[in-house]
């Protein structure tokens, strides 16, 4: 899908169907979701949803306005300068070099999360662009499974 990439942070009332309202809006109006993360904010009854989307300027403006119309939404943040991070967990066979993987993961702001009888689990948390590089680099260690966490972002 073409268009500008945009990170939108949505501050919502923490109620049962709010995520369905947000994702349903995207589905109903044909907007694109690249990643979506949601978690409650500490010491409030609010949650923060972070959505990475793509679209033309008109669509991006519509997304923000339509989100704002939903009743349980407090705030829609589209900051120019967002600090973005995405976490990735990767499972690798024990036969691969633990030291190499350790070095690679720490280059991308992470490390070894777990080592078992026959697997190694690595973790990184980095900017989305760098995560892409990591995912290319890790290929040569024959990853068994990769789990991406979706982007979280905070305005500067």
């Amino acid at each position: 899908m073409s268009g500008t990439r945009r990170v939108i942070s949505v501050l919502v009332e923490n109620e049962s169907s709010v995520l369905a309202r947000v994702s349903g809006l995207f589905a109903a109006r044909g907007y694109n979701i690249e990643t979506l993360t949601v978690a409650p904010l500490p010491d409030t009854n609010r949650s923060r949803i972070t959505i990475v989307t793509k679209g033309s300027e008109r669509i991006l403006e519509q997304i923000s306005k339509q989100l704002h119309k939903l009743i349980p939404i407090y705030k829609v943040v589209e900051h120019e300068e967002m600090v973005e991070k995405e976490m990735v967990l990767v499972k690798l066979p024990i036969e691969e070099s633990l030291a190499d993987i350790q070095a690679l993961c720490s280059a991308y702001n992470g490390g070894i999360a777990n080592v078992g009888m026959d697997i190694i689990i690595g973790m990184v948390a980095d900017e989305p662009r760098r995560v892409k590089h990591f995912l290319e680099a890790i290929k040569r260690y024959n990853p068994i499974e990769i789990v991406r966490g979706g982007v979280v972002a905070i305005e500067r």
Partner: protein
Amino acid sequence: MKMNGARMVCEALIAEGVKTVFGYPGGAIMNVYDEIYKQDGFEHILNRHEQASVHAADGYARATGKVGVAMVTSGPGFTNAVTGLATAYMDSIPMVIISGQVPLALIGTDGFQEIDAIGISRQCTKHNFLVRELSELPRIMKEAFHIARTGRPGPVLVDVPKDITAEIGDFIYPDSVNIPSYKPTVKGNKRQIEKAIDAILKAKKPLLYIGGGVVLSNASDLVRKLADMGQIPAVETLMARGVMGASNPLLQGMLGMHGNYGSNMAMSETDLVISLGARFDDRVTGKLSEFAKYADVIHVDIDAANIGKLVDVDYPIVGDVTHVVEKMIEGLEGKINPDKYTDWREVLERYDNLHPQSFTDSDTVIKPQWVIERIGELLGEQAIITSDVGQHQMWAAQHYPFDRPRQWINSGGLGTMGFGFPAALGAKRGCPDKTVINITGDGSILMNVQELVTASEYKIPVINVILNNHFLGMVRQWQTFFYEARYAETDLSYQPNFKALAESCGGIGYDVTTKEEFDSALKDAIKKDKVAFINVAVNRFENVLPMVPAGGALYNMILDDQQKEK
């Protein structure tokens, strides 16, 4: 005060000043009906289908400006209501719908008559609530009414599980609402309004583009004043008929796919569109790149998402049209020169004289347009006109002399056949002093024909004028124009005896084939004070004209049948 949840629902409705509830009982909502039985704060009207209940509440809301209320049970009761919700949602009509739900413990188990009402209605309500705790019920009811009527109005669903309506608790109805995440913008930005005023003063060919938002905001008098003080020409959308008044010389007419020549040319040549509560619907704009091509656009809308959605806007103003137009009038007072646009008005007058909104009458067959104009002559301002969807709807919008807002009630956005008859029941209940006429077709009327029984039982004397061409007329017209006259499934020659049908349900029926018969039928129906079907045999192949083919530019209109045949 201690009471069960069902009673709380009733007490909340009474506290909101509700006088009429339309609905249909069933298992999950029975507790509430038991309490309805015991109270006399409001009347309940039993429609014969849930869809009709919601349309009736909708018609009530459109005619009175108050929040319409309907009540349905879970499962099929709710799914039958969905078309009504969607209809109201598209036209921004304030309504509160109460639906029963299976007991909390059964939710998610595929219980009998269980359906995820909240999930299904999310995209066709302004907001919806599932009541999970009895203690939340009073607050939710209060918020539902508040959300329905404020900001951009819309339908709100409250889904109430059966065990909640049985449970007993304290009822304290809140005095005020506090929803921190919901604060509609009412006042327009002052600087933006000033810029818009400057643009109006600089314009040479300004045009007021009036939408349904003006009706919803009760801003018609202000808009007339604004037009009058600057002698600014105006066009109305389908939803705004009646705002300017039919006899107002500044009104060009209705624009859009079936707009008149003068209105569509005005929009094509204006240098400043002053959009008030309109949303640039595709049936209005035609081809977007050609729409108001030479104009800057002022867009006043209470819903920010409407602004810039389809056309680029030079002067966006988010706010209630009442507030914004008040400020515009203040700002233009003493500055605007009504003579400035004389040339522009003359141009538009020439367009109007060139191709006025007209039709060729006949002595041998009744023309549907004649019927509309005749109702207008006989009843004028005294009638509320509802309609279904299709050719008859467009003829009514084109030819009836609407003099005031809320006089014209139709499903504009969703285009729901079957809307008109139940909406007429609601309108008549809300405005008993008015004569309520549903202008309908032989296709549409059958989509909620069971309401004959409701109308008879509750003595709601609405008159259904069936413009009967034995066709699904609008689709037939498209088939004539764009499908080489292949009339796929649009021939409705096989039809009921409408007169007998009305009479079998306790109403009165008339078969009409001449103008004289029509006059006497209409007068008789008004006198009889009963629900009526006036079945008028009209010219079978009459087309709605002018017509802008879908996706075409507004200035490229099919003006007459001969032109199409060329």
